[in-house]
């Protein structure tokens, strides 16, 4: 049962309709934990994008030889392998960014979004479609993380990507860890509001 969506549709789907953070409500831990700056969001987004794309493609390639009874362990193994790879690479080549993200890079292995995409998409679809779906999901995650990071960095530190924008620090609260909950909650409500308004407008 191949998907009838084009590559672009798959990517857009991942970013908007099935955004992992705001729509599927998966992988919330990093969204709250390390979204204090846009840079952090971008970095972890890149790591997740890498893991998602590579494990999607891997599973899609081997989908016919994976025994159905050991499906989940195989997925886990594939994800863990690619997480190890990105972990080693980041530790070697970008030690500073790696230190900022701390334990969260390794925790990608337990992100529900990746396993879910493998189970729902990659194990049924072609390599090409899985690749684009992986890109979409990864970009969707990255976009979500960066959106939260944008708000928190701008409101908390008055900077964006490390550059001083406002010149002062409006509300320290937003970079404090507990603010992550409020920002994510309010952003979700905001998207719900848009959706409801959109539906109303459509009906009218």
């Amino acid at each position, binding site marked *: 049962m191949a998907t009838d969506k084009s590559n672009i549709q798959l990517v857009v789907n991942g970013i908007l309709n099935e955004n992992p953070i705001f729509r599927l409500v998966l992988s919330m831990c990093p969204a709250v934990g390390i979204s204090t700056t846009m840079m952090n969001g971008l970095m972890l987004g890149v790591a997740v994008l890498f893991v998602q794309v590579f494990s999607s493609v891997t599973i899609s390639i081997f989908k016919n030889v994976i025994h159905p009874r050991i499906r989940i362990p195989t997925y886990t193994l594939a994800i863990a392998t690619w997480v190890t790879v990105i972990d080693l690479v980041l530790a070697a080549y970008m030690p500073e960014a790696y230190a900022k993200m701390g334990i969260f890079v390794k925790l990608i292995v337990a992100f529900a979004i990746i396993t879910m995409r493998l189970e729902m998409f990659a194990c049924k679809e072609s390599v090409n479609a899985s690749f684009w779906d992986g890109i979409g999901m990864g970009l969707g995650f990255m976009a979500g993380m960066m959106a939260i990071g944008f708000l928190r960095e701008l409101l908390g530190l008055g900077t964006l990507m490390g550059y001083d924008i406002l010149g002062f620090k409006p*509300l*320290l*609260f937003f970079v*404090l860890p*507990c603010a992550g909950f409020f920002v994510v909650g309010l952003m979700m409500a905001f998207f719900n509001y848009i959706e409801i308004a959109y539906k109303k407008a459509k009906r009218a």
Partner: protein
Amino acid sequence: MRSNESVEKIMWTVVACLVPPLVLSVFIFGIQTLIITAISVISCVAMEAISQKLLGRKVTIKDGSAVITGMLIAFIIPPGVPYLLPVLGAVMAIYIGKHLLGGIGYNIFNPALLARAFLLATFPVAMTSAWLPPLQDSSIFHYMGTSIDAVSAATPLAVLKEQGLAAFTESFGAAPNIYTTFFLGWRPGSIGETSGLLIILGGLYLIYRGYITWHIPASMLGTIALLTWAFGGETTFSGDPLLAVLSGGALLGAFFMATDYVSCPTNKKSQLIYGIGIGALTVLIRLKGGYPEGVCYAILLMNPVSSVLDSWFKPKRFAPPAPPKGGGK
């Protein structure tokens, strides 16, 4: 809640009980306490109206509940803070703490305390250093227009925590004298928490009218006194229980915040446990924690426990049929 009188009347009585400490605070710290309280009350009432309009509910600012929240926010912040703080506190307390959760009667945490925790996290400097020494002979306009850094004083609990008992006695007077000073309220501290006498009088009046019961204040203050006596001194059983009750926000918290109808348990037995929990957490944070005062966080931490307590001690005859066991979901 149990009384037959209208909610509105109860609320305005509580407001009336909060007025004497406010008036006294003007004479202790100067006129700006009145300004901060006014800003706080006005922004809370305005926020209440705005939230109710935004969420399409009936505007009920006349019932006085927002006025109480506003007064309490002002009462638990230092007297020298910038005027912006109570406004932000009002947004947190009324919009996020109360109306998003369903409005009056549905808030889980005490809105005023939530505002204080939020302000303390956001403005750690102002909230921990804007304490003022009590006015002695100067006029109530003494602190207007002066830079706060120049006059700030440490609160008794902060001195006790960071510098020890010797420095404490030195800065606040010798033993017999100190109790009267603290009882009357002539000490640095938050705007409305300093005068033990007026707060106790107000609280006792509320108990006399049956608006609150004695269970929470008694068990909370008792626990604070007992635990401070046991662990608060250099050696075991040498702490000063009376001072522990009189300092910080213990009395204000016990009579006016821990007893908040919505966020405290309804059952007598659970109220006693609730009070003991608050007292124990207060002493834990005061003695071992990162903050000199723990009443605010102790009440916040016990707020969500209140519904758990109520469900544990539910009177049998009101118990709904047990949910079907097994299956998990």
